[in-house]
């Protein structure tokens, strides 16, 4: 068992030593997002940069210039959207590296020096990647299965419950699949913590993760709940503010950009906080799992 698990300092987010990794995650995402934003910006600049107020015209009520931009530049926009999607996929491995670096830092009560962090991250990256592929495939399969189920039942649902009832039941089936997907993503995080925190390979980590999730699900859900709700709240807050103040003038624009970046950092911090708490729970869960099932954990 790793020294980190269960120790009181494990999972504490606030030591500043985690900050570089949090900033690294924020920075890589921001750079990627900036590249996407800039290509859309270049297109808009070319199309309506002549108008007084520049692209503020796109936000005017009525949507005339926005619809004009989309109508005249539809092909380019579709190309950019496709590129942005592919770019997001390309960001997955980058995100995996940066989040594993953060996990290494979170799972150790000491300050880990850079070379060691890199080395440990390198070591855990393989199992993390395998776990990612397995869990993501599982999630896709779940959605696909429930979607097929809903499609299969849709006629029966409509004839039995009426159009509205049938549609609602259809939506409920898809909703259930999304809840399961969300639960699986919690399990996925627990597995990743087990891989890094306890130096496990993929399969033992999955077994450990499952065992801990089964025993300590109330703790896990309670830990995730405020952090997830907090993340949603800061995003909604930024949108509300945008709706009520609008943009268009330079100082407001700068302020809005600042608020958005605060939200973006908050999202990383909240996620780090959740992973850190998960590391604590995984640490605490290790002992009862070993005691009850005699699982062998130190194969890593």
């Amino acid at each position, binding site marked *: 068992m790793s020294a980190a698990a269960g120790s009181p300092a494990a999972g504490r987010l606030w030591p500043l030593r985690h900050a570089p990794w949090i900033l690294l995650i924020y920075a890589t*995402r*921001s750079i990627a*997002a*900036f590249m*996407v*934003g*800039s290509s*859309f*910006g270049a297109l*808009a*600049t*070319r*199309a*309506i*940069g*002549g*108008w*007084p107020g*520049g*692209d503020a015209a*796109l*936000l005017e*009520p*009525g*949507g*005339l210039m*926005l*619809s*004009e931009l989309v*109508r*005249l530049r539809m092909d380019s926009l579709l190309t950019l959207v496709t590129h942005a999607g592919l770019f*997001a996929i390309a*960001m*997955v491995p980058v995100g995996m590296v940066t*989040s594993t670096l953060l996990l290494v830092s979170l799972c150790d009560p000491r300050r880990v020096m850079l070379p060691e962090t890199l080395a440990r991250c390198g070591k855990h990256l393989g199992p993390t990647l395998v776990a990612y592929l397995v869990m993501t495939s599982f999630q896709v399969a779940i959605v696909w299965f429930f979607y097929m189920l809903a499609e299969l039942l849709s006629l029966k649902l409509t004839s039995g419950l*009426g*159009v*509205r009832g049938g*549609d609602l039941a259809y939506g409920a089936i898809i909703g259930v699949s999304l809840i399961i997907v969300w639960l699986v993503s919690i399990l996925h995080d627990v597995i990743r913590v087990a891989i890094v925190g306890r130096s496990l390979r993929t399969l033992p980590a999955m077994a450990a993760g499952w065992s801990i999730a089964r025993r300590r699900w*109330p703790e896990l*859900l*309670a*830990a995730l*709940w*405020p952090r*997830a*709700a*907090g*993340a*949603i709240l800061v*995003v*909604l807050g930024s*949108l*509300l503010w*945008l*709706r009520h103040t609008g943009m268009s003038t330079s100082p407001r624009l700068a302020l*809005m950009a600042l608020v958005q970046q605060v939200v*973006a950092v908050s*999202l990383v911090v909240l*996620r780090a906080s959740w992973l850190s708490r998960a590391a604590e729970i995984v640490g605490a869960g290790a002992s009862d799992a070993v005691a009850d099932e005699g699982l062998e954990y130190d194969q890593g």
Partner: protein
Amino acid sequence: MRLSRTGREALAGAVLSMACVLALRSLCAVPGETLQPSAPVTSAVTPAAHADPVASYDIDARLDTVAHSVHATGTIEWRNRSTVAVREVFVHLYLNAFKNSQSAFMQERRPGVGRGTGTLREFASMDVKRFSARELGGDDLWKQAARANPELPDDETDFRVPLPAEVAPGQTIHFEVEWDSKLPSIVERTGFQDTFHMVGQWFPKIARLEDDGSFAHFPFHHLSEFYADFGTYDVRIDVPSTFRIAAVGKLVSEKVEGGRRIERYQQADIHDFAFSAWDRFVMRDGMSQGVRVRIWYPPGFDDVAAQELRAAELSLAEYGSLYGAYPYEQLTIVHPPAGAEEAGGMEYPTLITTGGPWYSLRAIGTARGVTIHELGHQYFYGLVATDEHRFPFLDEGLTTFAEGEVLSAGWGAGGLVDLPGLRVDHASIMRWVALEGRNAEVVAQPAERFSSASSYSAHAYMRAGLILITLDRVYPGTVRRSLGTYARKFRFRHPTPDALVREFEAEAGADAAKQLKTAIHERGWIDYAIQSIGCELKRAPFGLFDSPPPRRAVADSYAALDGFRCDVVVARRGTLTLPVDIDLVVEGGSRTRRRWDGVGDTTTLRYEGAAPVDIAVVDPEHRVLLDEDLTNNAVRRLGPARARQVVDGVLYAAQLALSGATP
């Protein structure tokens, strides 16, 4: 009591979740529907109170909801309203458009493009059993009836019936008629779906007789609608007692006996009759402007029905002030069930059909848009009653424009989309669809000449509407006022496009009327652009000068005088000539407005002032919505401004997306 850490976390989660719900609710709050009635169109013209009744129908109809057929008998009271004697009548059997694959309607369908192109699971038929004229001997005249269009030998929607004797001008005769109509599976506007029945185009209908004694008859084309004389309708509808009926006209009596429901509907001053019957209808009603509004809809569709009812109530007031009061006592709305959507989006006198899923959002205005559009038809198709076959734009185009007027009055810039940060109005969507049609066809042409349903919609609806809104903005308020006069003056009078042009000319002048004619008859188009913008410092004159003699040479001192001299070149492409504003925005932000009458290919605006011109904008207030490209309407002398809000917005969206998508 001290909570455990898990308890504290759960408590925090609950509080934050509640905050999320509140934030979401406030984010999604859509402003209420408050009609801001635009200034009423005051017109010296009072619309006629009644139509001249020419063809009146008295019908007993029994609907067989299992065989999906109607057996009917009736009397058509018809008057020769023309100035010459006639020896024939033309009768439309529109339902036969769905009799087989060889009808004009079926042959003209473009697979997959537009309405009415779905699979016809059950064919229709209309069989006239008897058609005799009481005053002309009473023999069955249908034996002599022949298909009226030799060039379409397989089409059975348009028949010529020779009469055994002349009918003198002003003479009235009575046709005794008996027929069977078998409904098709739901196809465009009519048919059945399970037990839902939309019974339209179901009776033998006499073609409109023009002043010169000719009949406006035509086969039922795929893209064509209808045209008929006004009259009074008195219809008894007999359905199984478990069914409810929504019909044209006023319900004057109802009874249930022997397992049958029999309802009687009467209405004067109309030119068509349709009804719907279903054993699952739900109904709610309201009042507006003294008109009883009833909506019949499927179970579970209460919310969208409420939206439609509200839209109808609001727009009765607005339409009334624009085009004269709605003259009937009731308006009936039918929202067809899922699977019968093709019955939706249609207008009959005093009855309209709508559509949309039960979860139609108020923030997306399609339900109200359809309702307001179909209700708008009451004032053009219904009351003015133009020939929809020859001049479909006079109905669809004017209605599309009118729909935009009501949506703007009631829902402002969020007429069709009202989401946080995104409000889209009717004009933007109309412009999009119209310009996507690429001005490929003449707007004011007969329905069957349009190449496809999408082109029909792009030109007869949207481009016509776009032309009208452009002219109304370029010559402010003139279309609005002239349409107000036109709708009142020609109520019940079946005018042609010339009448519309004349009314517009009276308001806006000959030049403007010429633009309207070019736009609707000659595919007129326009694109304004800022061609170039250049400035230099003003300098003292230099070169060779002869006056006063002798010639002297003045060297360029390179010394700047006070201020700048700028030339802005504005170009107009296209065949329309519309006056337009040009704004010159000077460094520092002050604006100078210039006016160009639009004559010529280009104009050069000379500006002299202390600071150079930074930006030139042609049509800054977006009056010329017909302008093919708005991105070339504004140019900055020093290059375009960087799209910072787009960069910021997309950057933030991408950050959020990456937060969710990357591990």
